[in-house]
């Protein structure tokens, strides 16, 4: 197994019993996946979801078929686990995930505007602005930044239509850019 092989080739090799292929795949994607999760939930939860994602992939290796890019496959697993995590918690799945065709630009909860304002005033750091985004927009942005997914792949990984994915990402970028301009001013 070599480092030059594609993700899909490595995953196929792992499916067929090459444990070394898994090590390469894991090293390639562990940071991206970890940051995708840790930007959306507390660190202990992110670690748990991170492990669950890889364990699911390991358990499903015999059924793996390269129907999509490996990254899309990996983040799709992680997205499903994240949604399950939201649903188990209180208040449940964030509202921003509810709308299939349009995206509420501002908030998931009434507390969010205050949080955004506090972020702007306190630090102006982009990561904190990202944290204040509605969950569905934040996830779309992170899938793009950490996963390197295209609009179509974001839609596939999150189980929504392309237009919904596009709308979420557009709102996220617009919000972040607007806030960044405010910092400069």
């Amino acid at each position: 197994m070599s480092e030059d092989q594609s993700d899909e080739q490595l995953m196929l090799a792992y499916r067929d019993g090459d444990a070394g292929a898994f090590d390469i795949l894991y090293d390639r994607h562990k940071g991206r996946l970890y940051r995708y999760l840790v930007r959306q939930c507390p660190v202990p939860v992110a670690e748990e979801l991170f492990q669950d994602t890889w364990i699911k992939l390991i358990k499903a290796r015999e059924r793996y078929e390269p129907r999509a890019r490996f990254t899309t496959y990996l983040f799709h697993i992680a997205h499903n686990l994240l949604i399950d995590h939201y649903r188990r918690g209180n208040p449940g799945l964030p509202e921003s995930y509810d709308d299939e065709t349009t995206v509420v630009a501002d908030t998931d909860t009434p507390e969010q505007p205050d949080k955004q304002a506090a972020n702007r005033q306190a630090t102006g750091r982009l990561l904190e602005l990202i944290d204040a985004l509605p969950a569905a927009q934040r996830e779309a942005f992170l899938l793009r930044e950490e996963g390197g997914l295209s609009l179509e792949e974001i839609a596939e990984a999150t189980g929504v239509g392309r237009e919904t994915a596009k709308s979420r990402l557009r709102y996220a970028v617009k919000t972040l850019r607007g806030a960044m301009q405010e910092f400069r001013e």
Partner: protein
Amino acid sequence: MNGDDDKLLDRYLAGESDVSRRYREEAGGEVPPAAVDDRLRAAARREVNAGPRLAGLRPRAWTRPLAATAVLVLAVGIVLQVVKENERIQFDDVKSVLEKTAPPESGEADSAPQPEPEVLKFEHKHVAPDAQAPARKRDEISAGEPARAPSLGESRGAATPPGQDRAGATGGAYGDAAGPQPLDDPRAWLDYIRRLAERGEIQAARGYLSRYQERFPGRSVPPELFDLLERGGSGVE
């Protein structure tokens, strides 16, 4: 949303946005703890070393045709078994009809038109068409009968005195499920009638004689059989 937002998104997707640049600057290189790495790598090796699990096996291309063939074979087997069972039930039905059907005891029965016994109807339906079919089928039917219907000697036994078997005279002759065997052999019929007469079952013998004459109109009846019937009739009745 307006065109400016779309342009902003397009620039962002093209990697020309300062949002991405700022994100890469701020985002640290966070990675999972080394213990998590070790745990997951070990899990991946364990899974490989465990070998294929039955539940996780991908279906092979040949499994579907094989399953379809197996279902087909089973279905055909069941159908054949049901058909065979139905045939056996029909033979058993004939047997029970024969047991219930008795020849007329009074003399008027001889002159009155009698319905064809079920066994003959059955024979028309099942045996006669076989006359054009290979003889094997007919042989199977004939050969199969003794197993289910014992011969006269077996069923009655020589110990039964001719005059005492009144029940046999009414129900016995027709009640003998075997009857003349094989049905299309006139000599078997005559032999059967003779044995009935010798046992004193004159009514039954006459009933069979009548059917013999209907069945084999061109065949003669030996005079001694008539004599036997006459003697037996005068002796027993």
